[in-house]
């Protein structure tokens, strides 16, 4: 440290500073690239292993080599199975819940973004808290209520329960997108005689289209990924794909290729969608530490 500190290095001579630390800058950068790619491969190897298992012939499932002819048998078997139905349930529940939470959450987010009323921060905090609460705290009351209403094992029960986290995601994310849009355009529309909501509909909403898409996609992913609520609130009729996978693990005598194929199918939409909204992913995932 002290030896270096006495050396007269000025900003334009940064290259020579890098040389002093031992490794020239470009070599250091390449070393880091190589290390990060290697780490990435190790990190994702388990995922790749699951996917390749899905394409094995059932007889080869337990082999630990790559010498097999890929087949779609496992996927075909799933298609003829009850799994197709649970996959459909997942699609239905996730779309309905996403649609409903956008319908209710987007106007709320706009109001929270533009309307500076006194209790605003309290409302925002309350919404964030719903995101933090442990699911078990919701499931017991919801289970008892749905049992009483005869709604256990229905698609609608899940649609309603998923609102608990989707509404929070929509209001938090969309509020951010609305905040980023200058109010001048709306004000012009107001002066031209537009009402607040018609200005919102004709001026603001079209400007936030990418934000709307990203938010909807994240809602879809979170509903799609839920396991806990679906496990407790469904039995046979409304079972979603994640729960169906666990049923395979428990009852189907460990048909690993089928299990792997089901897992691949469940992660596929998530991977496609996250690739689509990559730019907004960070925004959504860190909004109040959203997860599940």
């Amino acid at each position: 440290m002290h030896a270096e500190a006495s050396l007269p290095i000025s900003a334009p001579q940064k290259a020579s500073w890098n040389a002093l630390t031992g490794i020239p800058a470009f070599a250091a950068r390449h070393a880091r690239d190589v290390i990060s790619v290697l780490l990435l491969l190790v990190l994702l190897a388990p995922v790749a292993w699951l996917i390749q298992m899905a394409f094995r012939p059932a007889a080869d499932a337990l082999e630990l080599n790559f010498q097999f002819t890929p087949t779609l048998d496992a996927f075909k078997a799933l298609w003829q199975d009850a799994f197709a139905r649970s996959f459909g349930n997942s699609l239905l529940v996730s779309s309905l819940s996403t649609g409903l939470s956008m319908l209710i959450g987007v106007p709320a987010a706009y109001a929270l973004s533009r309307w500076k009323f006194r209790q605003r921060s309290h409302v925002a905090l309350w919404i964030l808290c719903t995101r933090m609460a442990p699911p078990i705290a919701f499931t017991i009351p919801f289970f008892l209520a749905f049992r009483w209403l005869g709604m256990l094992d229905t698609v609608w029960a899940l649609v309603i329960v998923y609102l608990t986290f989707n509404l929070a995601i929509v209001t938090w994310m969309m509020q951010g997108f609305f905040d980023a849009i200058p109010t001048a355009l709306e004000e012009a529309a107001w002066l031209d005689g537009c009402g607040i909501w018609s200005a919102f509909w004709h001026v603001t909403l079209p400007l936030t289209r990418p934000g709307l898409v990203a938010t909807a996609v994240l809602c879809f992913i979170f509903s799609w990924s839920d396991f806990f609520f679906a496990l407790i609130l469904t039995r046979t009729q409304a079972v979603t794909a994640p729960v169906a996978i666990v049923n395979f693990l428990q009852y189907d005598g460990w048909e690993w290729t089928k299990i792997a194929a089901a897992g691949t199918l469940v992660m596929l939409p998530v991977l496609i969608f996250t690739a689509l909204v990559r730019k907004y992913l960070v925004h959504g995932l860190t909004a109040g530490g959203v997860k599940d």
Partner: protein
Amino acid sequence: MPPAATAALPSIQALPTSGGMVPSRTTPAPKLTKQWQRESARSYGLGLAPALVVLGGITLLPLLTLITVSLTPLSLTNPEGTFHFNQPLGNYAQLLEDERFVHSLWVQFKLSTVGVVLQLLIGLSLALLLNTGSRVASGVRTLFLIPMVLPPIVVALIWKILYTPEISPMHALLEHWGLPVRSLIANPDTALWAIVAADVWQWFPFTMLMVLANLQMVPRDPLDAARIDGANRWQVFRYIVFPFLQRTLVVCALFRLIDSFKAFPLLYVLTNGGPGTVTEVTNFYGFIQAFNFSYWGYGSAIAVVMLVIIFALCALVSYLGRNAGERHAR
């Protein structure tokens, strides 16, 4: 010299905001403004109302139900227990004597602390590794987030395969190197740490993401100055970058801590709380009491205790978050 370091910091206060509903100078008459304000408040209220009503219905109502149920002995075997408040605190008193509950808190503590610390360390190291301008790093960055976006059940499935010796490539490799290991999740000594490993694999990207975002806001000037003064990489990190990241790391840790209370799919699929009760965390114990044994009153009491702990942590997050905001604004 570039402008002062503080100018590079995005600050919420510095963003242009239009304070009122209407541009104050150009409005025709103050009377109209008043009326417009009243009208706008009404229509904003209309937009907010459905969300508040629905949120009230799906959060406050269940919360009240949960607390009410936790004061009763409601269970499948005791359906009349619904409005039975003879011993309102009976469930809570029982919790204190329930060794399995106390044990579950201890398991939760081990799982949470070790998991969070590892996630912070790995997330921070990877963020520092990937924080270069190179095209490879920026391309690879999003791929590192994959474990975090995968459905939890798929993550559980992946690790179930890795921890099942007959089909696991990991076990095959170990055997190949002459290190045969029996199933990690069936061994009481290793089961919890096997879960922690899977949890860390899934969630270190969260820390990585937050730290990376924060690293991009580190002001350039102190860095350059330190380098000119001859500080080495470690010194630059220790005395300039790390203090800047400190708050983010704390908030990150708390977020992950709160989320660690919800770990469920991994436990359910990998160990089901076993062997014995070695991996049974509080959340899982509550689930078993409520849905395996149908002791809804008792399960609710466990959920209430967890809620209290989590909201205390939440309060801490918002307190630290606010402080962090003030520090950055300065």
